[in-house]
């Protein structure tokens, strides 16, 4: 763990200070012949929210989805590098990607509840893992942690698709945390939500980081400043004719936004992107 963590200090001494849960070292990520991301060291710290920001096509989602091997579902995807998780390389030859995803959960951009009841949605992962304990209690706990319990406790048998967008996203978060994963990856979880629902999900994230480690891709820089402890800024390199993303710099959110070390970061932050 420490040895892995130290390798990141070489590249970016400010990137991580605490205990690193996932130490991601990307050498190259390909989609077919297309080089999507290169040379990026992204340590994810325990009980913190790591925000990934950057312009479209900079590879931040690709890197996030590489952490739990979601990209394996794309046939032409190829990952070169390592993702060290509790001392094991997630891309190691003996690793089952299905098991990786049970420890490193995921919340997606579009709320994607299953077309089953609210209860069954939350219980899905527990049943999948043949959970033997009190299912009702765990479902209630997950919904409470996702700040959804009070709104749905009287209609647990209703379809998950009957909820509003913000509620659906919190349901998906409840579903993801019901199995108590170690790390939660969130790929622009608020981009399909209105400001009120966004605020609720953000408050939820801040609450969740006490128990989980979160990594968050966001297009909204204000969101990064509101919730992320550490921010990673990615950019696109078009110098070789392609569009290859890479990590420009990473550090405590305040430092990235107030005193970035790289000119690219400064330009991006000061521009009125969001």
């Amino acid at each position: 763990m420490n040895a892995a963590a130290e390798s990141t200090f070489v590249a970016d001494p400010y990137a991580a200070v605490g205990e690193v849960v996932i130490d991601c070292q990307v050498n190259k990520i390909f989609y077919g012949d297309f080089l999507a991301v290169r040379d990026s060291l992204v340590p994810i710290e325990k009980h913190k929210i790591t925000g990934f920001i950057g312009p479209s096509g900079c590879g931040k989602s690709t890197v996030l989805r590489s952490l739990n091997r979601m990209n394996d579902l794309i046939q032409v995807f190829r990952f070169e590098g390592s993702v060290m998780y509790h001392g094991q390389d997630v891309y190691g030859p003996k690793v089952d990607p299905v098991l990786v995803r049970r420890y490193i959960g995921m919340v997606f951009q579009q709320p994607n509840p299953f077309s089953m009841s609210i209860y069954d949605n939350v219980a899905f992962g527990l049943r999948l893992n043949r959970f033997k304990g009190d299912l009702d209690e765990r479902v209630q706990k997950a919904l409470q942690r996702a700040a959804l319990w009070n709104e749905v406790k009287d209609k647990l048998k209703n379809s998950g698709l009957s909820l509003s967008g913000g509620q659906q996203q919190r349901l998906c978060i409840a579903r993801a945390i019901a199995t108590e994963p170690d790390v939660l990856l969130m790929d622009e979880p608020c981009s399909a939500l209105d400001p009120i629902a966004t605020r609720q999900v953000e408050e939820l994230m801040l609450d969740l980081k006490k128990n989980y480690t979160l990594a968050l891709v966001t297009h909204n820089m204000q969101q990064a400043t509101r919730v992320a402890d550490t921010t990673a800024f990615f950019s696109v390199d078009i110098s070789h004719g392609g569009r290859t993303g890479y990590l420009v710099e990473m550090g405590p959110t305040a430092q990235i936004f107030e005193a970035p070390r790289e000119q690219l970061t400064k330009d991006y932050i000061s521009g009125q992107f969001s």
Partner: protein
Amino acid sequence: MSDFDLTRSSEAARPMPQLARQGFEARALKSGLLTGLTWLAALLAAVPLISVMYLLLVKGGSRLFGADFAEVLTGLPPAGFELGGGIGPAIVGTLVMVGIASVLSIPIGILAAIYLGVLEPRSRLANTSRFLAKVLTGFPSIMAGVFVYAVLVIHWGYSAWAGGIALAVLMLRTVVLAAEEAIAQVPQRMKDAAYGMGCTRTQVIWKVVLPTGLPGILTGVLLAVAGAAGESAPLLFTALFSNYFISELSEPTASLSILIYNFSGMPFPNQIELAWTASLVLVLIVLMFNILARLIVQPKV
């Protein structure tokens, strides 16, 4: 300058906006005419089924809903000049052969659809298979009968098995294409969610794809069953006909459609009346499956 002086344009300079409906304006007339035409076309589309149902009810209803309906539904077909009798063997035979066809074609069809829709949608095998299933849609149903005749009947004789297999050939295409359609419509994000929770591919299919696509799959299955129940051509060469209740699957078997074909050509009024009754029963069976299919796809609130 004064030409473009917007501040001076007064209400007097512009006519009052005319918002009342102009019934006899050219475009209003055209719109009314076209609306009427589509209305008429929609009505015409409903005419065949309604008139067929009417005719069947008039001609066959008296026997089916009459005093001796039990005999009609369970009795043996009458011989020439004999009165009374029923279509029992044909009803049972049709149900048995449609059952055989369903047992054969539904599992194969759904498994094929899983391959086409989830596992390898873009592979060469999938493309070929999908194309062939579509070709089979336009395949004359009598060819299924001829095919099974050549492969099975020549060696083992006419049987319910042969009839069921011929119907299965015809059902397969409907089941495969409808189930693939239903499976393909399961949103990718639902599958992503399942993978993201640590589902294996098998679990994604069993726990998410099939339950979510189930209404569509069932609709396809029921339409296939309804279609098979009404087929006659494939049964001519395979199940032939029988005047008795089926006792073994390996013997010639009666079916409603063949009974209609046989009896409607006979010179006896009793048989002709029974042919009408059998037509009504057949249409009611088909209608029942269609209505079931409709009920299943209705969204749950």
